């Protein structure tokens, strides 16, 4: 499998009142085609900045992001970013939101494609609803569907489930895994939830506190569907938490 995303020597710092603030320091890694890589790190460590650089919204001070062998300079529909607070347009219906990114189709086909993806994420019957009529979990599904509609090669997910309650987060995660098993996207997931990372990722990178550097990397060799309560999963979890500075998990 060739490498889909190559991150080479990324650096980013901001000017602040206290002087120069280094947010991301010399991060390099690769993501293979079809792989799901989770990045975990303490809050405020620069994860979001890292993701925004990889997705093309923020320019790095130094280093490069290479996607399919070409340097990434700006965002494009081949890689869709999904964030914690979401960006489903509140003034459009679910169907209109899903049709938003579809270019070059006849209007009738657009609606058909949109409805097809709404059904995939379990939003059948809600195509004409407005976002404010949906629950948080449904909104997240709508956002996922809107990304999937344009057939992106990469999904960039920045804390996508953090705004959901634990049960809903688990449900949407299962939904995501089911879709990934069928459509084989490359996924980069940023999270502070170690369990979530173990649940979905093939590989987990642990970031250090600011400035963010890659501190450790773990493979997650368990086949899907995963049992997070298994001894080996728990072992991995303890090991990752130790990297994050939490030695005594669960007292």
């Amino acid at each position: 499998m060739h490498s889909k995303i190559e991150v080479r020597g990324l650096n980013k710092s901001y000017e602040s009142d206290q002087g120069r603030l280094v947010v991301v320091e010399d991060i390099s890694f690769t993501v293979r085609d079809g792989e799901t890589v989770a990045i975990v790190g303490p809050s405020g460590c620069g994860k979001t900045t890292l993701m925004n650089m990889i997705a093309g919204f923020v320019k790095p001070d130094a280093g490069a992001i290479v996607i399919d062998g070409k340097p990434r300079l700006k965002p494009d529909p081949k890689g869709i970013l999904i964030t914690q607070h979401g960006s489903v347009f509140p003034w459009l219906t679910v169907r209109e939101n899903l049709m938003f990114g579809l270019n070059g189709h006849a209007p009738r086909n657009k609606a058909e494609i949109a409805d097809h993806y709404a059904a995939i994420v379990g939003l059948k019957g809600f195509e004409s609803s407005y976002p404010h009529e949906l629950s948080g979990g449904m909104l997240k599904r709508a956002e996922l569907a809107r990304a999937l509609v344009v057939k992106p090669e990469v999904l960039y997910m920045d804390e996508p489930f953090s705004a959901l309650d634990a049960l809903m987060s688990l449900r949407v995660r299962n939904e995501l895994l089911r879709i990934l098993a069928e459509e084989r996207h490359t996924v980069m997931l940023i999270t502070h939830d170690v369990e979530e990372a173990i649940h979905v990722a093939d590989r987990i990178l642990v970031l250090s506190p600011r400035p963010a550097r890659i501190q450790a990397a773990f493979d997650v060799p368990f086949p899907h569907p995963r049992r997070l309560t298994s001894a080996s999963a728990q072992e991995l979890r303890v090991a990752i938490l130790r990297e994050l500075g939490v030695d005594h998990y669960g007292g």
Partner: protein
Amino acid sequence: MNRIKTSLPALGVIAALLLAWWGAIVATQSLIFPTPWGVVTGAIELLANGTLWRHIAASLLRVGTGFALAVCIAVPLGLWMGWVRGAYLTLNPIFQMLRPISPIAWIPIAILWFGVGDASPIYLIFISSVFPMIVQTTVGVHTIDKRYLRAAENFGVSRATLFKQVVIPAVLPQVLVGMRIGLGVAWLVVVAAEMIALRSGLGYMIMDSRNAGNRYDLVIAGMIIIGVIGLSLDSSMRRLERIRWVRWRYAQ
């Protein structure tokens, strides 16, 4: 039933004010200031001879024309200023300086430029309502949540789609707020403008009633009618908040 209950205190205050007014007239035996009943009979007189409708129509027509012109200019201009930084930096200081000038101060210039016909009050209404609408529209563009613009950028949509499906719907609720403010100011100004040398309109009616024999019953009737029309203009603007395109803004 509940509505009646909640509006009871307000109705009580109105009744008390009317009673105090009546009492004061009886006590002072004023010959000029009318009783509430005098105002009612005055209003009936205006209704009966048809002059009231003529004045209301004249005022509404002026407000409608001036306000519509202002909307046509302010919304595109506000969108442009909100989107293009250069336009904002160039035009905003001028508008911020013109905005606090009372429309009343424009009256001499309006008369100089447009004479004493209908054009003067229309111009005054335009000038008074155009600035708040420009400002609200510009603010509306500036406060579009960045994540929506990012999403649009991410999906790589055309400029036309970006405006049609993101910028304009996102700004529409703010435009509506601007229109509410603009229409309120326009109604204030038309009455003031009509007090100067016109032969129709509610402002003219008030001044004319005083000049032609101290008919204070008609003056007060006119004032109350202005208040009622202003209130209904505002509530019809508020009704617009329920239309499909902006309901999302108020739904949370």
